[in-house]
Structure formats: C-alpha cells, structure tokens
C-alpha cells in the first residue's frame, strides 16, 4: 500500500492505493502518528485506488479511529469501490467509521 496526503479546508485528505494488509503496519503507524501530530480536525481516507483490504487492515483502521477519537479528530472513509467496498459493507464497518460515497 502507498499513500499520499494533502490538506484542504483545514482537513487531511489521505489517498491510499494498492493492497492494504498487516504488511503495511509500519508505514500505517507513521501515518497515524502524522495525523495525531497535525492540526487537522478532520481526516478523510480516500479508498478510490485501494484494490484489496484484509481483516488485519480493518483492525488497523479501528486503531486509527481510536487515535483520532482520543485526539478529537473526525475520521471518515470515502470513494471505496469494488471488493474493498463489499468487504466494508459485509463487515458493517460503517458502525465504527463514517463511510461516505
């Protein structure tokens, strides 16, 4: 998995692409630390180019949500599609993290 981040309207927009599994945990930890240390009040994960996500990556997203909650930042996911969207739906992930189209 690779990601790029940009700021817009005081929020962070993070675009993820490729395959997201536990193999990405080190850069994911760095991403979470970067989010926490930023002044952004909202964080949007853009899944448009994400092709694969597994259960470990879902767990890591919940860790990010926990960190954002503690830092009083809003976390959401947008633009998921294909198999990634199906997995988020099947795992009822909207119960935990806000998902927008």
């Amino acid at each position: 998995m690779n990601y790029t981040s940009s700021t817009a309207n005081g929020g962070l927009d993070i675009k993820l692409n490729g395959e997201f599994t536990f193999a990405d945990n080190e850069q994911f930890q760095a991403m979470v630390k970067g989010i926490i240390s930023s002044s952004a009040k909202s964080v949007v994960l853009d899944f448009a180019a994400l092709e694969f996500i597994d259960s470990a990556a879902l767990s890591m997203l919940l860790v990010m949500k926990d960190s954002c909650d503690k830092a009083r930042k809003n976390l959401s996911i947008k633009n998921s599609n294909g198999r990634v969207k199906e997995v988020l739906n099947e795992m009822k992930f909207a119960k935990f993290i806000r998902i927008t189209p």
Partner: protein
Amino acid sequence: MKSYHSLRPELHEQITAMIRSSPGDGVDLRMSTEPNSSDILFVQRQDIELGRLRDWQFEQLIEVDSSFSAANLAGCLRVSPLVTLRVDISTLCAYQLRLSKFFLGLLTQRSHPFSPPLMQQFDLPLHEAITNAVIHGNLELQSSFSDLESMQRYSLNLAERLQQPQYANRRVTLTAQVEARRILVSVTDQGPGHHHAFPAGTVPSQPHGRGLLIISEQAELVGFEDEGRTSKLAFHFSE
C-alpha cells in the same frame, strides 16, 4: 516413484544428498529428464514469483531452505493423487509473499476454469485462512491490539517471532483439488493447533476477529482437521 526438478543445481545436490542419507524414510524420488506437470519443483525463496515460474510445469512447489528435512521430503510423496497443486513453503516466505494471490495465480496459469473476477473473489478468504495459519498457527501470536501502543507491541512480537527459527522455520502448506464445480483448498500449519474459533455470526465490536467471519461469509468453510492445523475451504464456481 515421483520425479522432481529444481531451478538451481545446488538444490539438486542438496536433494540428492537428502535422498541418499535417508534410505529408511520412504523417500523415493528421481530427477526428471524432461520436466512434466506431475513433478515436484524445488526452489529457493527468491524464485517464488509468478512471472518466473510461468513456464515451469509442476504439481508441487517446494521451498528448500536450511530447515528443509528428509521428513519434509517424505511429506511430498504422501500427497493424494486428487491434488492438482501443492505449495509448501516456510513461514517467513509465506509472511513476505501475498501467498493467496500467488497460489491462485499458479492455478490460473494451469488453465483452470475460473476467471479473474472469480480469482478476486477467492483471494480474500484464502488470504485470511493463510494469515490464520501463519500468525496464529506457526507464529503462535494472538491478534489483540486495540490501540496504537498495543499494535506497536504486536508488530514487534511478530518481527521477533519471524527471527526465531522455532517459529519461522515451520511450514505452511496449501493444496488445491479442482473439481467440476468447486475448488477445495486446504491450508496447513505446524503450530500447536486449536487456534481457530468460529465467529458468533455477528460482526465483532473489538478490532480483531474478522478473519474467520470473512472466510465464512465469502467461502464455504468445510472444516478443520489435525486439531485445527488444517483448514479446508471450498470455492464454488459455475463458469
């Protein structure tokens, strides 16, 4: 008697020496003069790449590393004739590789009747079964991180286990049996067993525990064998 070939001359020497040194272990193998689709192919970790193996015919792909033994070799000869493809690799290799994608890619290269969308559909549940075998089976780790701190600890534990031969040298074995309307895949680890627990049927509220749910939602979980060390999944297709 099974026949084998290898991508590297040094592997041939290693296998030959192993066969000679274990006359009582039932290892009955000969080197192929002409590689064929029922062969065992011995490789090293750096050879395990789809593009590199595209032109090779084999029924079994076996990674030979320093821990590979005559007992592993004998295991290659006890494979059911119904098995279409068998891959037997170390835990370290299984962790570093996207093994489900690789395994399904090998099946597709052998012209089995499923399309890229079907392959995508099978990929995630198989990946989750392999992750269970590697993480909870061979590396004996529990998925119990709930915040950044516990995730960092988990990540360190995982990296340490991958450095410890008693865990990292354990094998992960996949077999596929292709039938008229389904593929039966088994995933076997060498851990202590009993690391699987069926989900209650609802989405867990804690950060972990979704792997088996994904497997049962997206594939037919046929069952477990060998005290939980082997999980069997069936993937159905109609095309």
